[in-house]
């Protein structure tokens, strides 16, 4: 049995896991980098270990330090969340060797799936369809590029370059014309080396007009491997998912069963344990192809939880404890949509933004879930990923879920930092979203010249009135009482901002 979990992550996923542990009666330990002290997740754990270091590499990626933190706090399990060390097989191995339960699949399964080439081979052997493509491996940049050019001719255009050990869009390039190939390949390789310390590049045929469909898997040690249906995550900007839903709007029961069985085969081929996701491309023809398997919990897991009535984090805890999973037969009900709230300027090519969350008021009401890692008063810094929160809605039908998402986004108030909330709101009105005909290129096609907000002159005028009145009324200034005679800030949305007067 697990009695104390160390969560080796930060932000919203750390909050999600810490809450689940607390509800399960499991003690918790959070670890944080010094610059994360005082953020939301650090307050949710029973104990906090502040890691020693000032970069991600020396804190959240410092395997040794995190294992030491687990040992010194008497933690009997580590949950890695997603990103960071979640798919590092050597870390999983070290955790187990230290006598600590690893909440995730075996290091061998991570290795087999973590490497795109090995994963493809494993899948082909298991009878799961894969996209035409090949991998190029070479230490020497010049050799690697030459080999990539050769391979590109065999794979054919349009094609996609991907870092073999990549993820999150890093080291990824779409190439439509052979004349662009060399420059793109150089860029992809550079990013891959920088981000993952691994220059291997995988080339695959780009299946335009396809949907990104992924199947959630759960497998326990009692012989049960099940799928929890699909998520459609086609809507991406710069290869980053932004709008995810379940079930897939064009999915049929037959296709779900076929893809679900393929995903179960994929999991069983590597003796998978715990929660994982098998990603597929679904071509307009109805054929589907294995993309990769994510051997961890995924950002968009809430949509699956809401439509299947499961708690994937609780299942992870059960499975890692050696218990059978608790979920019953697949039972998909209603429709769930998740949007990712980023601190970014959607009108300016999605450039990340920073600033204070001077006001942060999420929407309220039935069927709304917010998985946030921040709260009002926090500062958005350039240190970490710009994802602030995930807003998820559930409703009996897709149409009602979209209506609810529109209402929720209209009600979401975030001031002090530029976010993509208005972009997400207008996305909900885009025809392919309304129709459910989204593909991985929907955003680029819908806004070929980039997104800019639809003007609303009446509201713009009224907002000037509000700004000018706020200034006139001095709504940004407050002077406060003293702590032992010293001037000291009091809680107010405004007092944490700045004071313009000397």
């Amino acid at each position, binding site marked *: 049995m697990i009695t104390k979990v160390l969560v080796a992550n930060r932000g919203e996923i750390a909050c999600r896991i810490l809450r689940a542990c607390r509800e399960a009666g499991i003690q918790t330990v959070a670890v944080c980098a010094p610059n994360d002290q005082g953020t939301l997740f650090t307050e949710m754990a029973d104990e906090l270990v502040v890691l020693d270091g000032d970069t991600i590499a020396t804190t959240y990626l410092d395997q040794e330090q995190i294992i030491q933190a687990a040992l010194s706090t008497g933690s009997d399990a580590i949950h890695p969340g997603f990103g960071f060390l979640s798919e590092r097989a050597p870390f999983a191995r070290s955790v187990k060797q230290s006598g600590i339960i690893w909440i995730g699949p075996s290091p061998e399964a991570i290795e087999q799936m973590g490497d795109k080439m090995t994963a493809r081979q494993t899948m082909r052997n298991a009878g799961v369809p894969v996209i035409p493509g090949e991998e190029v491996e070479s230490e020497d940049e010049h050799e690697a590029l030459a080999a990539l050019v050769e391979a590109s001719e065999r794979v054919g255009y349009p094609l996609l370059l991907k870092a073999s050990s990549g993820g999150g869009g890093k080291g990824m390039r779409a190439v439509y014309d052979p004349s662009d190939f060399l420059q793109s390949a150089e860029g992809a390789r550079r990013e891959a080396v920088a981000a993952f310390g691994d220059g291997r590049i995988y080339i695959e045929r780009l299946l335009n007009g396809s949907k990104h469909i992924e199947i959630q898997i759960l497998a326990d040690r009692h012989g049960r491997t099940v799928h929890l249906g699909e998520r459609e995550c086609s809507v991406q900007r710069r290869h980053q998912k932004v709008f995810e839903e379940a079930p897939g709007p064009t999915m049929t029961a037959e296709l779900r069963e076929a893809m679900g069985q393929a995903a179960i085969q994929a999991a069983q081929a590597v003796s998978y344990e715990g929660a994982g996701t098998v990603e597929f491309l679904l071509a307009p023809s109805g054929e589907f192809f294995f993309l990769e398997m994510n051997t961890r919990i995924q950002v968009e897991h809430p949509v699956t939880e809401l439509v299947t009535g499961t708690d994937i984090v609780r299942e992870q805890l059960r499975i890692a404890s050696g218990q059978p999973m608790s979920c019953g037969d697949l039972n998909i009900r209603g429709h769930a949509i998740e949007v990712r709230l980023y601190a970014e300027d959607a009108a300016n090519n999605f450039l990340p933004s920073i*600033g*204070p969350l*001077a*006001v942060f*008021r999420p929407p309220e009401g039935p069927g709304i879930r917010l998985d946030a890692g921040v709260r009002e008063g926090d500062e958005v810094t350039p240190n970490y990923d710009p994802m602030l929160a995930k807003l998820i809605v559930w409703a009996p039908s897709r149409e009602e879920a979209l209506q609810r998402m529109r209402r929720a*986004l*209209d*009600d979401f*108030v*975030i*001031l*002090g930092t*530029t*976010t993509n*909330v*208005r972009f997400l*709101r207008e996305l909900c009105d885009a025809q392919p979203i309304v129709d459910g005909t989204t593909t991985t290129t929907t955003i680029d096609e819908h806004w070929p010249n980039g997104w800019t*907000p639809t003007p*609303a002159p*009446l*509201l*713009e*005028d*009224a*907002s*000037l*009135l*509000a*700004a*000018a*009145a*706020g*200034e*006139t*009324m*001095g*709504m*940004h200034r407050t002077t406060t009482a003293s702590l032992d005679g010293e001037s000291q800030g009091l809680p107010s*949305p*405004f007092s944490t*901002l*700045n004071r*313009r*007067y*000397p």
Partner: protein
Amino acid sequence: MMQHQFSSSDGPIEVTLTRTDSGYSLAGHTLESTGDGRLKIRLSNGRIAYAHVAKAGDVWWVHLAGQTYRWERIEPGSSSSQNEGGLVAPMPGKVLDVLVKTGQEVQAGTPLMVLEAMKMEHRIVAAKDGVVTAIHFEAGDQVTQGAVLLELDE
């Protein structure tokens, strides 16, 4: 009458608020404070909307009916706005002294008025040569931020 300047991509926007019984108005929209940090706006089309506002640095952030606007304020004391004719109070406070008279010729740099605010004295200074054409306050008066204190013609 309260004037504020905000910058926009089309150049500075001058906003002149009109005081109403319970708040302010602009372009047919009227506004009052709700007492809980929001602003209640009756839009010119008759609809009611509630604005959340916050200032970060020089930027006013406004959330209104699902839209978020950023308005960077141009400081009234800055050269760009001081040349517009009216000299506006840079902060709320009390007029301590009026140093000029209507009709008086002043040079750039001439002190015009002394304002007390945030427990400090602030001198309002002419940014250019000109003639004082109007003085709207006298010593002892309270002024709001953005209130036009006096007017200067070239």
